[in-house]
């Protein structure tokens, strides 16, 4: 008989830390990662010696990233592993650390994401099947096609799609860790350069460098290490799934999101309507409309109108990507999914300052990655 996270012992996010996402610099990945881990240790009130296991999400650093970076905090001999799952690398590192604490193998685990831009090599290009489009479908073209299909299906306009980037730029302008720091108007978002289809540059996420860290702890560790219970955010669900062929009119990414999110909401025994904050994989503006509908925050074809009414603003019925999302905060790959958990934790603690969603009690973090893979976590408010 298999088990879900809910059947295992409770896991709490007890510390969060970030290095701001930004354009690539000469600073080493180790300096970025250490910055985020030190901030997370300070936030938790923990020393590195308390950490029993590390999962580092990275898609671009190459082999063996963890120990050469973390030895500066103490060569304690603990297990360290790199996790690669395309855009969902960081989310997958969180999941692995979460499962390790939930199972009882570790009491305190660190999930870290760190990356710097580098030439990307994609294994799917090498499986030996000829691509009919001869390599002409980059990720933004894939989503430009989904945008065109969405607009045709629901009578939506390029402005409807662009408003996602307007909202998320407004949120990012309030986030000191964000790569894009300006709140943009609809005119600015719609302005060239065009990338693919109706997607302009500001409707595509920036890929830079950065780091994010979360410390996860068991109930026993919260007690033993005298951590602040009022700031310990429980992880209520963790799900990971891969694409099955030919599902759904909204596209495979939306269908994969729907099934993975429903499994997570079921695991947490909550409904989508109860969510107060959500962080989506909005690498391209159309994705937020697709996923908002896919997880059931609104009906099919209703996301653009609900967004226009402000329902997904901070202060609306559910704040969607209050961090600024991938569009505003940025998408440095490895850190992104870990950074989402940092934002949801901050929101559920009531510590998000000008980005705070009032009375946030329930949050969901979602990433998809090339493959396709999808990872969803549901988090609750501290006891």
């Amino acid at each position, binding site marked *: 008989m298999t088990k879900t996270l809910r059947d295992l012992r409770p896991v709490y996010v007890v510390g969060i830390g970030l290095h701001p996402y930004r354009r690539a610099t000469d600073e080493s990945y180790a300096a970025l990662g250490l910055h985020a881990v030190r901030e997370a240790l300070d936030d938790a009130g923990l020393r590195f010696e308390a950490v029993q296991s590390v999962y580092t999400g990275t898609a671009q650093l190459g082999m063996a990233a963890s120990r050469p970076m973390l030895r500066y905090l103490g060569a304690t001999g603990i297990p360290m592993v790199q996790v690669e799952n395309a855009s969902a690398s960081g989310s997958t590192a969180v999941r692995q650390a979460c499962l390790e604490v939930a199972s009882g193998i570790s009491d305190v685990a660190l999930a870290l994401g760190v990356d710097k831009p580098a030439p990307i090599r994609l294994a799917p290009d090498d499986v030996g099947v000829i691509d*009919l*489009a*001869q*390599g*002409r*479908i*980059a990720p933004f*073209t894939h989503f*430009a*096609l*989904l*945008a*065109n*299909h969405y607009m*045709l299906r629901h009578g939506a306009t390029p402005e409807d799609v662009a408003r996602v980037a307007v909202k998320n730029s407004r949120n990012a302008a309030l986030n000191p860790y964000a790569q894009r720091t300006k709140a943009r108007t609809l005119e600015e978002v719609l302005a060239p*350069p*065009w*990338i*693919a*289809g*109706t997607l302009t540059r500001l409707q595509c996420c920036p890929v830079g460098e950065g780091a994010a860290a979360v410390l996860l702890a068991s109930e026993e560790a919260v007690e033993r290490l005298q951590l602040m219970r009022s700031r310990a955010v429980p992880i209520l669900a963790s799900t990971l799934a891969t694409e099955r062929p*030919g599902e759904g009119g909204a596209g495979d990414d939306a269908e994969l999101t729907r099934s993975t999110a429903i499994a997570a909401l079921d695991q947490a025994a909550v409904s989508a309507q109860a969510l107060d904050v959500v962080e989506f994989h909005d690498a391209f503006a159309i994705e937020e409309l697709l996923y908002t509908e896919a997880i059931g925050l609104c009906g099919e074809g209703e996301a653009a109108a609900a967004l226009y009414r402000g329902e997904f603003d901070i202060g609306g019925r559910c704040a969607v990507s209050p961090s600024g999302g991938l569009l505003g905060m940025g998408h440095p790959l490895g850190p992104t999914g870990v950074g989402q958990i940092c934002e949801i934790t901050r929101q559920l603690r009531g510590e998000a300052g000008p980005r705070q969603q009032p009375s946030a009690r329930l949050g969901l973090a979602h990433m998809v990655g090339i493959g396709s893979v999808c990872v969803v976590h549901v988090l609750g408010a501290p006891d």
Partner: protein
Amino acid sequence: MLEPQDLIGTGILEAYATVHLHPGGEIETPFTIGVIALDGGPCIRATLTCEEDSGLRPGARVEARLVALGDSEELRFAPVNEGGNGT
């Protein structure tokens, strides 16, 4: 086990996007990619013969054509002209 299967080279254009920027610089832009529901299935994505999407309409019938590119040929799709037999 994967097995080769013959497909029909005609279908319906469901969606499209003109690409203005492509990573790497080896592929010239603009070009246009279409989502095509082939007669008899499945739904595929392929390069269209037109560079830009002006003049395309969703629901249009399209057909496969071999396009000469230097020394080689590539399979692309083009709208079927009114009165064409579509084969």
